[in-house]
């Protein structure tokens, strides 16, 4: 057993965690815990860009960005938060440049910008160039730049430490985390005045996903088990263009640069559904367009995929602006995008829901937004909510830097005033018990089988289009899988670098996320953003212009509604 004491501990070293860490480094005694080496975090996989109304290549205003964010999120966005996001995006992107981020440049030497889905000029008139980018490896540059800054500021990294539990005092203050040092198998208690969860998303709940294998929702599930609610879990985004069968993402930047989706007949179908923005309509819509085409028999060769056509783009544009994603098509499909069509299908991509927070990154516990002292969250694990029912492309990276920074700054203030809360008795009790269970059982269910079954069910019944019957079946299946999970047995009973054990632990977290997603999807009897119910095809503002909070307790699951903050833009029908 190892015990550490810090002012603050940050779990997750992706864009959100690192941005927060940089605010605190040198000013407070902090630790950054990550199950991966920081530069391996999934932020590094982000491709297309990070939006900010810099107006470098054409007129733009943060209020337009805010409007697009609200409308893109199908009016479930908290508008006070969207204002913060859009306004502070400008300064945050400039800060990244000052830290050294190598953005693509305009001929004048300014940060270059390009078009992205749902981002418009003058409140919806037409596409605008708002996404700042570094080729199609913007996330790679962000994670590298922030890690470099972490090194520069001597951040105390706990690399390859896996969080197993989060700790609260009896009166509900957050007071630390329990981790497993992967290399040695040793358990650590990290005792702190404040904890920030920045552990990313949980796309691995679904079969076809763009998410890394580490995207298992640990940081979302562990506080949930300890009574913290999750918000808007039913809203999970499917990105229209994943590589067929593999789910590897081909960024929306491909369409931002002029790429077109074509069905099996070669028809550019998006304009039939969204006459103004066409292929650049928001993701939830384009994914449904594809679903509809396939359903009506216009998939390629009658199968469940369509084509992304880049063949009309100049080869120079492809090489300069889309080098990585075209390389993915060559490597994994053997397709040359300069001359051939690329098979794509919607892929599970982004969790709009997660730990509910206010605009300072403080996690809240109820519809009245009561803050849980010492507990913060930012990034994909959190739900501020700036993405509402559907996130716009490029807005996650903005979210990471804007709210990662705000959370970091607020924590600094908090820890300067707070005293260290006591640890609960036997803080490692739950974590140790769980590991012991997994390590001692020699005969039982197989982790991979349960995981595969969960992923198949979620893909089949809880993805782009949902309806009551399927959701009920999914609820039943997940419940059975949870039963089976209680009897899993693993092969590796060793202590050092036991990834068999970690995969089992992660599966438990994913099952919690899956259960919450299904429950939210069943409850929400309307269609809004990424949540589309075939049996309730219309948005229902009278009953459902509200966030959901889901709670887990020994008595089962409980749901509450939380009002949406509307400041400027009254809900309207979403047309593009």
């Amino acid at each position, binding site marked *: 057993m190892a015990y550490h004491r810090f002012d603050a501990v940050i779990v997750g070293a992706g864009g959100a965690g690192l941005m927060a860490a940089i605010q605190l480094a040198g000013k407070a005694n902090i630790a950054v815990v990550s199950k991966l080496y920081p530069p391996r975090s999934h932020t590094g996989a982000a491709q297309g860009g990070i939006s900010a109304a810099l107006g470098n290549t054409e007129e733009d205003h943060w209020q337009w960005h805010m409007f697009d964010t609200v409308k893109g999120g199908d009016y479930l966005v908290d508008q006070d938060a969207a204002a913060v996001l859009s306004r502070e995006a400008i300064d945050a992107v400039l800060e990244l440049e000052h830290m050294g981020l190598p953005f693509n*440049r305009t001929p004048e030497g300014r940060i270059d910008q390009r078009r992205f889905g749902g981002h418009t000029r003058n409140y919806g008139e037409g596409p605008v160039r708002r996404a700042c980018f570094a080729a199609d*490896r913007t996330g790679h540059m962000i994670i590298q730049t922030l890690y470099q800054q972490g090194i520069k500021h001597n951040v105390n990294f706990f690399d390859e430490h896996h969080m197993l539990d989060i700790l609260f005092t009896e009166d509900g203050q957050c007071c630390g985390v329990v981790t497993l040092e992967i290399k040695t198998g040793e358990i650590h208690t990290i005792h702190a005045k404040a904890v920030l969860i920045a552990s990313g998303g949980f796309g691995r709940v679904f079969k076809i996903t763009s998410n890394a294998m580490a995207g298992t929702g640990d940081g979302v599930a562990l506080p949930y088990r300890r009574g913290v609610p999750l918000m808007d879990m039913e809203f999970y985004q499917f990105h229209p263009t994943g590589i067929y069968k593999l789910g590897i993402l081909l960024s929306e930047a491909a369409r931002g640069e002029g790429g077109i989706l074509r069905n099996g007949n070669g028809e550019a179908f998006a304009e039939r559904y969204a006459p103004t923005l066409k292929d650049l309509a928001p993701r939830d819509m384009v994914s449904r367009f594809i679903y509809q085409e396939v359903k009506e028999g216009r998939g390629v060769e009658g199968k469940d995929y369509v084509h992304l056509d880049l063949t009309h783009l100049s080869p120079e544009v492809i090489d300069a602006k889309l080098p990585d994603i075209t390389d993915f098509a060559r*490597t994994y499909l053997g397709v040359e995008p300069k001359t051939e069509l690329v098979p794509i299908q919607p892929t599970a991509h982004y969790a709009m829901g997660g730990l509910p927070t206010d605009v300072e990154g403080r996690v809240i516990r109820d519809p009245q937004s009561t803050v849980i002292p010492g507990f913060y969250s930012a990034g994909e694990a959190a739900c501020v909510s700036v993405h509402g029912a559907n996130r716009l492309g490029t807005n996650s990276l903005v979210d990471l830097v804007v709210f990662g920074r705000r959370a970091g700054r607020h924590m600094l203030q908090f820890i300067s005033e707070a005293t260290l809360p006591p640890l609960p008795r036997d803080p490692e009790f739950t974590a140790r018990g769980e590991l012991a269970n997994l390590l001692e059982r020699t005969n039982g269910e197989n982790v991979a089988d349960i995981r595969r079954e969960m992923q198949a069910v979620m893909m089949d019944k809880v993805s782009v289009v949902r309806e009551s019957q399927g959701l009920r079946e999914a609820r039943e299946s997940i419940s059975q899988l949870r039963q089976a999970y209680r009897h899993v047995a693993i092969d590796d009973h*060793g202590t*050092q670098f036991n990834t068999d054990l970690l995969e089992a632990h992660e599966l438990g977290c994913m099952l919690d996320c899956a259960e919450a997603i299904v429950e939210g999807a069943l409850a929400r009897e309307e269609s809004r953003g990424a949540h589309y119910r075939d049996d309730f095809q219309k948005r229902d503002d009278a009953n459902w212009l509200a966030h959901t909070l889901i709670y887990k307790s020994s008595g089962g699951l409980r749901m509450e509604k939380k009002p949406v903050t509307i400041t400027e833009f009254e809900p309207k029908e979403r047309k593009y």
Partner: protein
Amino acid sequence: MEVTLRIKRYNPDSDVKPHFEEYAVNVEPTDRVLDALNEIKWHHDGTLTYRRSCAHGVCGSDAMRINGRNRLACKILMRELGKKITLEPLIGFKVIKDLVVDMDQFFASYKSVKPYLIAEDAPSAGERLQSPEDRERYDDTTKCILCAACTTACPITWTSEEFVGPAAIVNAHRFIFDSRDQGTADRLRILNTRSGVWRCRTIFNCTDACPRGIEVTRAIEQVKRALLYEQI
């Protein structure tokens, strides 16, 4: 198709030295090596240990020796490899378990070249300007994902612990040739030593190994030239 994977195994809890184990698995020609590893781990032997995350060649987790060459297991497909495939951990670093090596030394070397922008003058309002041409000069070396494939492909690093290795030089290059950076003198001093660029014998293994297609040897040469002729 059925293939045989020969995997070098080492379990620190029970083994004194590494040994090979063979696994016959059914794979698609378009499967990644990582898919085959997963198949073994999930359905044959859960103790098999390797790092992985993104599964498409961008996070740098799963560099290993595949049929004798450093590759990312997620970026090389079965059809490129034949029916018998040998997998070993990277050479030069201590093996922790199976295909997992200790990266401490790698990251220490990386950190030693000050891999961060050094620019103390506060920029005025807005961004620091940089022309597309100036941006292009260090574009190649910004692509590094710190997977260690290059460094552990270099015979010099196998024998000399002090050598910072290609990856660290690549990351120094990324800043030395960035027009916004002011730390060049410092970094060149660090690299102008016996453990720095002069250890490089231009063997080109690093360039062959880089999964990101970075011209590593060329970057090292550019740093050498910067030292010799004092021109950036």
